[in-house]
């Protein structure tokens, strides 16, 4: 088990290197000059040259890449062109916010998804199944930025129960766990949770229906287990796959929350990426993508190891 985890950790190294190359290349392949946004329109040629040298944009791409990679390995992702602050500070604050939001959304999605999935799977083809499956399809197919806006209109604009945007009172950019901050999280987290909810519900429904049709369930009943006892066995058989799907969903939410963070002005990586793209803030863009990719890889690693711990058949 430990050696398996260790091996998996070593395997991530080449993946991360590949990620670094791709994210560097993508950012530099895109057209546009990063300095344009900060240089005054009437800047002298010398000033432009000096700035260019300062950021290292005058060197070859290969040179730039290795310089960037070398510094990144030491935990230095450079300086944001737009704000002048270290990219690491900016990214990690945003990552913290995004991670909190994504984790809460995934948790809601996972709980609701499992609930719907188990009900639908256990009572396949009943009205309860139809209702739960309809909820799942709604979750997967509704455009969530639209859902976000609708929720804002109902709960913030009409009813005035919940704040519409931001992560905390007074434009607070730092998430804290208190009642005030929580009220800011409810709408974006709910909006975000519908996708993992739908996907997990559908996965769990299929799994449960499949497991219930297997002979060992008859075997369990033949041993005199109560329906609840049988249910526990079904849960343990469902867990590995359901957890894997949840991990992947959390990964998607980490990287794919641009729309929701924009709708709710949530100060996370999505919002950060959005502004970095529009300001052509290359160091910030690179740094954010790299950190997100890093999280995705780590997450998959954790899920794989967890899954192996839960399902003996995957081991070795």
């Amino acid at each position, binding site marked *: 088990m430990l050696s398996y985890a260790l091996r998996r950790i070593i395997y991530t190294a080449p993946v991360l290197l590949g990620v670094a190359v791709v994210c560097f290349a993508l950012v530099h392949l895109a057209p546009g000059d990063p300095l344009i946004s900060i240089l005054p329109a009437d800047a002298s040629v010398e000033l432009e040259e000096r700035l260019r040298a300062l950021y290292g944009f005058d060197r070859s791409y290969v040179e730039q890449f290795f310089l960037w990679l070398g510094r990144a390995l030491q935990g230095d992702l450079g300086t944001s062109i737009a704000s002048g602050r270290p990219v690491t500070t900016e990214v990690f604050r945003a990552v913290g916010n995004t991670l909190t939001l994504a984790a809460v959304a995934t948790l809601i999605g996972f709980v609701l998804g499992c609930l719907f999935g188990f009900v639908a799977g256990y009572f396949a083809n009943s009205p309860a199944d139809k209702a739960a499956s309809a909820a799942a399809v709604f979750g997967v197919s509704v455009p969530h930025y639209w859902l976000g806006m609708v929720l804002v209109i109902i709960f913030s604009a009409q009813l005035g129960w919940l704040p519409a945007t931001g992560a905390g009172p007074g434009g607070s950019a730092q998430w804290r766990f208190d009642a005030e901050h929580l009220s800011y999280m409810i709408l974006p987290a709910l909006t975000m949770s519908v996708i993992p909810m739908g996907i997990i519900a559908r996965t769990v429904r299929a799994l449960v229906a499949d497991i219930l049709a*297997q*002979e*060992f369930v*008859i*075997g*369990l*009943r*033949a*041993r*005199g*287990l*109560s*329906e609840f*006892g049988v249910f526990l*066995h079904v849960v*343990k*058989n469902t867990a*590995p796959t359901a957890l894997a799907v949840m991990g992947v969903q959390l990964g998607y939410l980490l990287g794919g929350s641009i729309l929701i963070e924009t709708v709710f002005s949530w100060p996370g990586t999505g919002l950060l990426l959005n502004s970095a793209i529009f300001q052509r803030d290359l160091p910030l863009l690179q740094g954010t993508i790299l950190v997100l990719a890093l999280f995705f890889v780590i997450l998959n690693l954790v899920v794989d190891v967890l899954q192996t711990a*839960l*399902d*003996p*058949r995957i081991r070795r």
Partner: protein
Amino acid sequence: MTDPYVRIRDLGVTFTGGAKPVRAVGGVSLDIREGEAVALIGESGSGKSVTMRAIMRLNPEKRSRIEGSIHVGGHDVMKLGARRLARFRGAEVAMIFQEPLLALDPVYTLGAQITESIRRHEPVSRAEARARALQLFERVRIPSPERRLDSYPHEMSGGMRQRAMIALALACRPKLLLADEPTTALDATVQIQVLLLLRELQRDLGLSIIFVTHDIGAAVEVADRIAVMYAGRIVEEASARDLMRAPRHPYTIGLLKSRAHGAMVKGARLDTIPGAPPDLANLPAGCAFAPRCFLAADSCRRDDPPPLVALDGGRTARCLRVEHTHPDAIGTPAH
């Protein structure tokens, strides 16, 4: 004579889940004495597994209609409530399945599954249950039992899995063991070992066994008595010896002739029963076997299915023309 341990009367099972109701079992009556081993044999779809599952009420109750009565050791199985039924299953009657890899929960170790069963039925500590699981593994002769208790089903060989399955079934000292084709999925050499083990356990523990199979050879190995099923009914019932020596129902005769055996000459034609088993959703009038029967007369295709005819030696056959199959009868089929 004392009351039989298992007493099944006019058991009917109709599956109503599909477009057309399927009458899988149509009036089965069967008695099993304490410590007796009875084999139910027949083709796929003859209703033998369904009959056996009905004894534990394991057929899906929402999608089936069940008639008749089943008594096991004083329990009226049809009338048991959910709680009593759960206590009855496993402790009074246990079951082993055809393919242990499918019938064991893949994500629990065998030790965990056995201790779970024991603790479900008896108030014993975890350590005590584990000690009993170890004894059971030794009893069914699993090598290095201590280590095997911590194995998952997929980590064992087929024969070992079936032994583990038997150990699991015996965990709560049941009095009746239902074996659903327990050797069909095994290698020929392992089959014999498992059959001998079953026979030995039955003798030592005084178990009653209902043994479902389509392998007559395996049935003879284990069973005292054999009941042959066709299209949801028992068509012939006799002691294993009598049945093998002188089958009386034309279907049994066909079944015995269609076996491949060691003495067969290479290239010789294997006798088979012509035609295919009937559609249970659409049974013909009269005897269900008549369309495939070499002895069938017009009377066989009319009216009700033939009644069970009592023959000498305590055996029965469900055939109108049973006198023609008597060993001394002139009408014995030529072959």
